[in-house]
């Protein structure tokens, strides 16, 4: 259910958190759905179970999942995952815009990109 990039410099632990947050925010994993057990996920991905465990703990700490003792981890209801992803998007946009600003993009040029992206969405 998850794809990891083992060649990436990004630690597996972070990749796991990111992928699961994405799946939850997109609604692929709905509220109160049980996540695969640490053992299953570790075996399927061929990664260290301790890494999976750590990623699950972090997701719980961020309020994206909750755990029921003896039964495993479940997706928490609410917008936790979506909020985290939107915050990340805002950061990415800010980075991209600052880079554009440094290379000499003007405000109208940036606005044009933004409106073209939004008009695409309307036409679809």
């Amino acid at each position, binding site marked *: 259910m998850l794809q990891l990039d*083992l060649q990436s*410099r990004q*630690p597996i632990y*972070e990749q796991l958190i990111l992928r699961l947050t994405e799946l939850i925010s997109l609604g692929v994993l709905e509220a109160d759905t049980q996540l695969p057990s640490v*053992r299953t996920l*570790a075996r*399927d991905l061929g*990664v260290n*179970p*301790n890494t999976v465990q750590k990623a699950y703990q972090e997701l719980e700490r961020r309020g994206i999942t909750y755990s029921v003792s003896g039964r495993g981890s479940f997706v928490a209801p609410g917008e936790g995952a979506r909020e985290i992803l939107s915050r990340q998007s805002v950061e990415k946009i800010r980075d991209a815009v600052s880079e554009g600003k440094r290379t000499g993009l003007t405000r109208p040029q940036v606005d044009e990109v933004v409106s073209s992206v939004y008009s695409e969405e309307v036409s679809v």
Partner: protein
Amino acid sequence: MIQATGLVKCFGDFTALSELTTQIQKGSIYGLVGSNGSGKSTFLRLIAGVYIPDGGTLQIDGQAVYENIAVKQRIFFVADDLYFLPQSSMNDMAGFYRGIYHNFSDERYQKLCDIFPLDPKKKITTFSKGMKRQAALLLGLACQPDLLLLDEAFDGLDPVMRGAVRKLLSDEIASREMTVLITSHNLRELEDLCDHVGLLHKGRILFEREIDELKLGFCKVHAAFPEGIGDEMLSGLDLMQVSRNGSLLNLIVRGRSADASEYLLSKGAVFAEGVPLTLEEVFVHEMEAVGYDYNNIIF
């Protein structure tokens, strides 16, 4: 699980391990890396109870290993140079281990024989190098040890079998809390598999760290300052290495890449991009930082 304190092992006038102190937790995958001749295999043989320590103590769950049958029951050692009984097949070896390891599981052995494409009735001497590795790992897993020692374990395995072995190890660790100690020169592989790594050099642990912490603890930043930059402007960063090429800067920094790039941008960089270091880069730089000439060390 494993507690080594001031461990010393000498061969003649050569000191292979000098006061090595470390601790390995139950259920973890600990990767041991180091230069050639740094004492990795010696350390594994001490843990396996092959050698007597010349000084210091080595304890597994509070007990010494040497000549301690109860502790050795729980350890399986896949050595660098594999040994099988002369003329034996895998079934013969399974019979041999069944007599030694009380935990040996025939059910597990059969299951593993289905997974690995090996003929259990064929003489092991006819196997290729990689197949012998597979046979040794298969037998080791069938013994269901609490501690699995792997010396250059992935050596000679093809990519498909590497994947299979990783999955098998993950499963064992998650289900039985098996502890794995693995040495390798393939840092890429260790990076994905281990949760802790230790760097051994000249018989000592140079440093050991949790792998995520290690990867997130350092970054490589590439930045450009067309106006030039003075050293005082970099003072806010914990620098490990600086190299300049005109207005371009290449830095190795302790800390997260996002923080480092943000700092450089605030100091007037036209661009600053950071990436986390790979395990290989961390080791090279860490050894350099403590004054070892890494050019002479082959990973």
